[in-house]
């Protein structure tokens, strides 16, 4: 892909939390690119740093404990390239980016809208921050927005409070709030996890439609490989705050390279799959004081000596497929064993 197709370049991003139990490296050296118009899936078990990665991109890491310690988040805007990691969290530029370039939707629709303001006023607020319009026009646009996300009758629903809507409707309303600014970048953090399966399908469909209409890039974060497979063009797999595998979606599903990805794939039910379901044994380690080694080693069926001694680098497997695993070192498997 050509450089001018890139919307976002994340390079060696490190976001740490200073907690009572020590320094938690929630995101530790994450790099990936996001192209214009694509949907990038980010997958991993909870606690892998997916959400913190996405919050870092909007410079919204919870304060005062969390902080971006290093790395670059380069956003390509119309006429400039901005490194978000260097911007002040509440600075003017950052606000401008949030108003015009980016938007975010969250997991829990019920708590992601303020309970004391109407859905309409929360959409209008976003519209008025990003467009130069007055209240009346903003209201018109908000009604239009509600229609687009399939909330009807929009003229009446606009005056509803969030608790008067169902979970699915709230999720649509939240999408309306997010897209009110007409963003290039939509970050969706587990947007369907709290919904039941039918509603989930509807929301995914809606997002795909709106992506076509708005020509935006979506970063879709989920722990659910199935959902990721359905909506993504490319997938980033994360584990303990690091990217362990990147590949186009078909490549990832047909040729998973990292043992963690393989484990994830085996643990999801799939129609037509004969093989038995096998959850990954063990659990995600706490991210305090992790050793210089492959952090998946304790759970990995292919573990080798070197895995517990040295952290594997990222190996390029061709065609944009990368894996962070010693198995892919030149002749790796033939080494000491």
């Amino acid at each position, binding site marked *: 892909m050509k450089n001018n197709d890139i919307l976002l370049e994340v390079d060696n991003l490190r976001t740490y939390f200073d907690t009572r139990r020590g320094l938690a490296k929630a995101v530790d050296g994450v790099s990936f690119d996001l192209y214009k118009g694509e949907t990038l899936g980010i997958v991993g078990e909870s606690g892998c740093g997916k959400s913190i990665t996405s919050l870092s991109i909007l410079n919204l890491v919870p304060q005062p404990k969390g902080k971006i310690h290093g790395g670059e988040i380069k956003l390509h805007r119309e006429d400039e390239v901005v490194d978000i990691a260097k911007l002040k969290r509440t600075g003017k530029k950052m606000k401008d980016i*949030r108003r015009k370039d980016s938007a975010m939707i969250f997991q829990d629709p019920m708590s*992601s809208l303020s309970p*004391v303001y109407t859905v309409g006023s929360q959409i209008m607020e976003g519209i008025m921050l990003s467009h130069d319009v007055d209240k009346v026009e903003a209201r018109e646009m908000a009604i239009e927005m509600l229609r687009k996300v399939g909330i009807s009758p929009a003229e009446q629903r606009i005056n509803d*409070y969030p608790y008067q809507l169902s979970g699915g409707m709230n999720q649509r309303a939240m999408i309306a709030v997010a897209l009110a600014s007409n963003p290039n970048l939509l970050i969706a953090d587990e947007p369907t996890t709290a919904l039941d399966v039918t509603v989930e399908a509807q929301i995914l469909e809606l997002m795909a439609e709106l992506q076509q209409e708005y020509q935006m890039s979506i970063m879709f974060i989920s722990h659910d490989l199935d959902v990721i497979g359905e909506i993504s063009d490319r997938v980033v797999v994360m584990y303990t705050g690091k990217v362990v595998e990147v590949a186009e979606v078909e490549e990832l599903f047909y040729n998973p390279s990292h043992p963690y990805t393989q484990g994830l794939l085996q643990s999801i039910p799939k129609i037509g799959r004969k093989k038995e379901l096998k959850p990954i044994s063990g659990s995600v380690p706490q991210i305090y004081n992790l050793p210089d080694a492959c952090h998946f080693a304790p759970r990995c069926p292919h573990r080798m000596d070197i895995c517990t001694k040295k952290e594997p680098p990222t190996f390029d497997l061709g065609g944009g497929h990368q894996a962070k695993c010693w198995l892919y070192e030149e002749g790796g498997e033939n080494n000491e064993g």
Partner: protein
Amino acid sequence: MLSYILRRTMIMIPMIILISMVSFLIITLPPGSYIDSYLANLQRMGGEVEQSRADALADRYGLNDPIYEQYWKWVKGFPSGNFGMVFSEERPVMDVIQERIGFTILISVLTLLFTWILSIPIGIYSAVKQYSFGDYFFTFFGFLGVSIPNFLLAIIIMFTGLRFFGVNLSGLMPAAYMGEPWTLAKIAEVLKRIWVPVVVVGTAGMAGLIRIMRAEMLDQLRQPYIQMARSKGVDEIKVIIKYAARIAVNPLISTVGWLLPQIISGGTIAGIVLGLPTLGPKLYDALKIQDMYLAGTIIFINIVLILIGTLLSDILLALVDPRIRYD
């Protein structure tokens, strides 16, 4: 909404009956009666009273009747605003109450406002700047506030006024103004002094309120809708005030339930030390000489005031929080 208010008011009726019983019980606990302490006082001053006169007094006030009859005699006048007689002043209790309840309520309301107006912004600040110097500073001063008993703070302020500024801060107005009609000068005098009880009583409740506001704010700031608002590009100050604080103050409204008893309680003792024209000092005097109907009525009225305050705060809460309103 109306039915909610009605329902809440209905619940208050049995509560009030119960309160009248408790109040009466408290004032009849001391052994002996007003007559005994009256006689003792007279004797101490060298006077002699004939037993027949004492008996006549006791008879007149029904002090020899069984307790339930005395109670009944007292409460049956309530609906018509008759709370019995002040023995020591030989006039209706209602007169004394009327003279003093205005200032009692005024000082309580001012104290409530003072506590809120200071603790809300401080609580917001402490939450937003968690663990900052300012946060610790206010925490420390909050602690100092709760740790200084009301009456000591009153003494400290009066002492400072007298010693360093040469002003006498006791009472609400100089003696010359007492019983005079309200003039601008009189109001000015009252304003010069009324802050003392307000500060004295208010500081005690402040620490608790700051703590609640801070905790609520921290809680709200962790909510996803805050991140959602930030991700829209809403100014941080607006995120804090319009989103977080708007919801964080709601539970504060319901703290009236425990703040008000504290204020009435603190106001009583501050009133005694400062010599205010409120109900507190009258209660003190009445208890000392067993002027039972006066003491009982003041205790009763204090608790009823608290109940009404709590009811008003519940109604207010329902008004500001749509989630409750539509229940």
